[in-house]
């Protein structure tokens, strides 16, 4: 690409080329002009010579006229005006330069009258001598001794007739001419007099004398002169004849220039370069020398210029054609160079690529000799390229004599001969140090007909295969224990399910969850935990069948797939494995831990279609084992109560999640009545309870709901939902109740008590709803409080700080410690219903309640009895001075929304 932008010509070449072309074009034009000018000059010279010849001829003609007139006059007495007319008509018609011929008579002054009479007889009436003014008007000539009077002129016309009677002696120049002509007996040329009517340039005077012979001397000629002829001459036609001449005719008294009579032609061009043609002659007419200068204009004509322009154009065209050829040649060369460079670049790129790649590349000639090998190839066969080049491929490439590559080289040679590509996988290449596994691909070069060799590419696939295996292992194994991981476990399980459903095979799956693994981790650290896991792994492997699949499914959770044995045998295998745990101890430093495990066992048979069902069943079984107090093995059997319960919890889980997202919970309240001594009860509090709507609209009992929520860590979210909704209702109710606003109790689960963000949440909801927090009591179980006393105390302090009350719920049902109770800032003790519900019949429970009541009194707490289901119980509680009673006897729980209606009814009452 870069090369394509390389200019065809350098600046210097362009400059020189421009100079050469310009010189060539200018030279063509100049030489054309020179040639044309020479041609023009030659033509001009030829014309000028003809022109001069013509002028000389005219001069000669005039001389002839002069001679003939003088001769005619002398030799014939009858040559009068009539004859002169005839003669002149012919003359003027023949010779352009002669405009007219006139006769003047030399008359004595005394003879004027008789001469006038003679003139009248000749047809000139009232003849009188006159002179001409410049404007052509006449005036009397006046008296003189002699007069040279015009007596005749031909052609005779009114204009010429005006000269009849004109006395030539009145014009000095004419007098001089006449005198000169007589003196030398020659014709004399003089300028055309002013006022004369003809269009002429000069007058030629030809004297005549009396007698038949011309007097010899000037004096005698002067005496014998009787007049003469004058010829009016015009040379203007010479000045009009040619366009190419700038002509001057010098006559006595006047110089005639062409420019005065004719257009000198269009200005010529380049006058400074080309001079015109010039010629000059000085012919003599009679006694007068005249001059003729002929000169063509300097410069050349526009036609020459056009001609030169054409030559210049032709030269330019030739130059352009030459340039076009040069450009084509240069461009062709440039393209070739670019192509070569590009090819070289491609070759370098290919070579670099070949040298850079890890694949070994061998180029083979048609007869199987190596012509090229790249560095990877050198390394692969552990020989230098120089050694390999020219070597037959069979000799160069050591291939294992056994295995897949046994006949590899033979196949390559065969492929080379046949011209078809070949691919060979996993050939073992023998070198001095090792065996390398390679893939081979041979591609022949196909020429016009025969194979032109080919390229053999060999790729070392040993590492690739090893890496693949490693990745495959990592994908299916646990890195710590080396056991299969959950992924592989589930794949195997899927196969087993498939075998069970399709082929009726019997298998089993067993979940193994270590008990107290967390204790090891927490007390001895994670390294000890890992060590424990490895030991457990070894323990399990040593007690499993080789055909079984043992996998680590999670932190301390293992899975065992027991293949192809009946259900009982499988269960027995699992049972034996579980029993081995009864004597398994883990020693870490000075501490010894008895490691136990919960086993969840599920037999795989046609009853299961999906892996997920089996995994869920195993999970349930494992949980069940844990629920039984750990170190148990629970065999999952569809339909048994425990299993059903677990399944119910599992079933309710999605409903719980859905209820949270779509507000499918309902708040109920159960009144708590103050037990008054007079036997009456006054409802002063309400406990807010949670219900969930089922798909059919029925309400699900809180027992199942809460169990599942606690098991699957949903209680925090549920408690928050309750707080949010309860605050909203309470805020609405406090508007209605005002000062008579009852107190509402909200239950907090143990998970919420442990929630460090709960305080912030409550604070934000109080802010949002403006609920009166002094009308709210939070109930926590003693188990929740005891699980993290520090967190519980922090929460209780916060609740008290905002004016809320705290009740310790289900007091007596858990692992209650009165020592802890002393440090808990609670306001109410809610006595667990199991003590209350038979207080009227069970003295023990009654005594326990009495004891609790005493403790509460000592700690300045009030007591609330739950499960008050009849009047007898209530009366017992009143006797025991229990402060509040809650139960069906007081009121069943009802929807919180009914509180508003109750208020309206009470208000109306």
């Amino acid at each position, binding site marked *: 690409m870069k090369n394509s932008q390389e200019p065809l010509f350098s600046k210097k070449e362009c400059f020189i080329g421009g100079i050469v072309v310009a010189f060539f074009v200018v030279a063509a034009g100049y030489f054309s002009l020179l040639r044309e000018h020479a041609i023009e000059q030659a033509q001009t010279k030829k014309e000028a010579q003809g022109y001069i010849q013509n002028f000389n001829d005219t001069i000669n003609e005039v001389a002839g006229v002069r001679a003939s007139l003088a001769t005619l006059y002398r030799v014939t007495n009858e040559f009068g*005006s*009539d004859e002169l*007319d005839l003669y002149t008509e012919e003359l003027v018609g023949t010779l352009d330069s002669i405009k007219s011929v006139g006769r003047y008579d030399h008359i004595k002054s005394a003879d004027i009258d008789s001469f006038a009479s003679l003139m009248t007889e*000749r*047809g*000139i*009436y*009232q*003849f009188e001598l006159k002179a001409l003014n410049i404007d*052509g*008007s*006449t005036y009397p000539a006046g008296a003189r001794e002699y007069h040279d009077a015009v007596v005749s002129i031909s052609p*005779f*016309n*009114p*204009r010429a*007739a*005006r000269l*009849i*009677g004109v006395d030539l002696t009145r014009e000095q120049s004419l007098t001089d001419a006449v005198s000169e002509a007589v003196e030398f007996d020659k014709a004399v040329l003089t300028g055309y007099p002013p006022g004369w009517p003809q269009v002429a340039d000069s007058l030629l005077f030809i004297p005549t004398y009396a007698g038949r012979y011309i007097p010899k001397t000037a004096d005698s000629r002067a005496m014998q002169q009787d007049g003469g002829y004058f010829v009016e001459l015009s040379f203007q036609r010479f000045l009009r004849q040619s366009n190419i001449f700038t002509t001057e005719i010098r006559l006595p008294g006047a110089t005639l220039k062409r420019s005065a009579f004719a257009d000198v032609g269009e200005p010529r061009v380049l006058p400074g370069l080309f001079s015109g043609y010039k010629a000059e002659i000085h012919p003599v007419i009679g006694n007068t020398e005249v001059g003729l200068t002929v000169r063509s204009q300097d410069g050349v004509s526009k036609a020459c210029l056009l001609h030169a322009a054409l030559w210049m154009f032709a030269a330019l065209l030739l130059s352009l054609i030459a340039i076009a050829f040069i450009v084509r040649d240069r461009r062709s060369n440039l393209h070739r160079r670019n192509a070569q460079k590009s090819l070289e670049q491609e070759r370098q790129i290919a070579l670099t690529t070949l040298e850079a790649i890890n694949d070994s590349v061998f180029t083979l000639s048609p007869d199987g000799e190596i012509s090229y090998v790249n560095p990877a190839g050198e390394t692969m066969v552990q020989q230098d390229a120089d050694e390999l080049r020219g070597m037959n491929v069979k000799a160069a490439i050591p291939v294992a004599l056994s295995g897949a590559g046994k006949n590899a080289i033979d196949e390559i040679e065969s492929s080379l001969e046949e011209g078809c590509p070949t691919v060979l996988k996993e050939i073992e290449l023998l070198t001095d140090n090792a065996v390398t596994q390679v893939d081979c691909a041979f591609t022949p070069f196909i020429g016009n007909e025969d194979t032109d060799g080919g390229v053999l590419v060999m790729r070392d696939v040993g590492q690739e295969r090893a890496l693949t295996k490693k990745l495959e292992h990592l994908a299916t194994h646990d890195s710590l224990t080396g056991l299969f991981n959950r992924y592989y476990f589930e794949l195997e399980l899927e196969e087993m399910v498939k075998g069970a459903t399709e082929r009726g095979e019997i298998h089993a799956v067993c979940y193994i969850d270590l008990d107290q693994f967390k204790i090891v981790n927490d007390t001895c650290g994670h390294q000890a935990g890992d060590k424990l896991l490895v030991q457990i792994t070894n323990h399990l492997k040593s007690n499993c069948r080789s055909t079984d699949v043992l996998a680590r499914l999670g932190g301390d959770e293992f899975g065992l797939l027991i293949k192809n044995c009946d259900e009982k045998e499988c269960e027995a295998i699992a049972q034996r494995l579980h029993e081995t745990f009864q004597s398994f101890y883990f020693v870490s430093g000075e501490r010894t831990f008895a490691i136990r495990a919960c086993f969840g066992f599920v037999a795989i048979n046609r009853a299961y279609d999906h892996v997920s069902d089996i995994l869920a069943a195993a999970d349930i079984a494992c949980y069940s084992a844990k629920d039984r107090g750990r170190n148990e093995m629970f065999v999952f059997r569809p339909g048994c109560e425990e299993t059903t319960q677990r399944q119910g919890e599992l079933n309710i889980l999605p409903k719980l999640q859905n209820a949270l997202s779509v507000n499918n919970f309902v708040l109920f309240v159960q009144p708590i009545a103050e037990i008054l001594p007079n036997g009456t009860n006054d409802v002063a509090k309400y406990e807010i309870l949670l219900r969930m709507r089922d798909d059919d609209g029925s309400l699900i009992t809180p027992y199942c709901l809460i169990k599942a929520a606690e098991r699957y860590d949903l209680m925090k979210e549920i408690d928050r939902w309750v707080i949010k909704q309860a605050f909203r209702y309470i805020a609405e109710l406090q508007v209605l109740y005002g000062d008579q606003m009852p107190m509402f109790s909200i239950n907090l689960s143990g998970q919420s008590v442990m929630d460090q963000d709960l305080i912030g949440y409550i604070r934000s909801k109080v802010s949002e709803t403006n609920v009166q927090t002094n009308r709210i009591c939070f109930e926590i179980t003693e188990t929740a409080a005891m699980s993290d006393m520090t967190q519980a105390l922090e929460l209780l302090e916060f609740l008290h700080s905002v004016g809320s009350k705290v009740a310790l719920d289900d007091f007596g049902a858990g692992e209650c410690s009165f020592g802890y109770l002393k440090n808990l800032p609670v306001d109410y003790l809610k006595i667990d219903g199991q003590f209350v519900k038979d207080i009227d019949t069970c003295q023990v429970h009654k005594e326990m309640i009495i004891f609790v009541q005493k403790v509460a009194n000592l700690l300045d707490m009030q007591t609330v009895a739950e499960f008050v289901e009849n009047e007898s119980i209530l009366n017992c509680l009143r006797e025991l001075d229990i402060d509040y009673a809650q139960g069906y006897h007081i009121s069943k729980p009802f929807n919180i929304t009914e509180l508003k209606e109750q208020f309206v009814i009470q208000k109306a009452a």
Partner: protein
Amino acid sequence: MKNNLLFRGIHKALASIVPVAVITAAVFPVNAKDSLPRCLYISSYHSGYAWSDGVEEGVLSVLKAKCDVRQLDMDTKRKRSKADIQSAVKESIELIESFRPDVVITSDDNAAKYLIVPHYMNSAIPFVFSGINWTVEEYGFPVSNVTGIVEVAPIEPMLREAIKVSGGLNGVYLGADTLTEQKNYDRIKSGAARMGSNLGKKLVADAQGWKEAFDQANAEADYIVMGSNSGIEGWDDDAMAMYVSESAKVISVTNHRWMMPVTALGYTKIPQEHGEWAAQAALEIIAGTSPLDIPVVTNRKWDIWINQGVIDATGTSLSSRYTRRAKKFASNSDD
């Protein structure tokens, strides 16, 4: 397609405009004569008279395209009564006043005698006369506004040849009984007298009289000078030629080209010379030359004719030099 429509539109427009323009130009031409000087040509005689036709030809050949020429024939050769002449003069004056010419050209004596002399001597209107016979003295020309060319005949060579061929000095002038012919006779008689010849006259009114006079002249004289037949009643060229060819006995000469059918030798004037001179002089005057600066001249051109039939009838023989140089008359020859 659009170009075609446009072309058709232009073509149609041109096709309608061009004929209108041509017709308009034809109906309302630019009057080139308006920019030309006005020249009035007044002939004493009438069209059809050979002399007058020649003069007219000469005038018009020169003035053509140089002058707005208008012509009036006074027709005084055929209408000789005083009233007719005065009527022609009046018409001429009216035309001069209405046409207001830059110059007036007249031919022959009557125009000068009845129009110029009584009405326009030294007037502002320049006149160029032509064809005035022999002399202008009787009219007082030239004057400030009048110049022209006088009609003279080459009577000397004619009489010289007649005397030479006939060998006698007794001649007769045969012509019409008109003023012009009388003047011609007088002039030629003087010329003959200078040569020692006696020239009688026979002026007749009709063709028969002319025949009779011709016969008498053949019987009495050595030569006959043929005057003009203009004014002779019943003149028929062919009949007269026939008559002459049968009855001619002596040599006859004439100055009139149109009399050659009945004449042996001709020394004829050229009427076109008069017309051309007068027209050229008119143009000079229009160009600014005073008529006085253009001298009154006589005609200079004449020609020699022989009618071999008449010569043969008389039994005369001419020198070969003469017969070689003279033009041969034929009844259908133009000049």
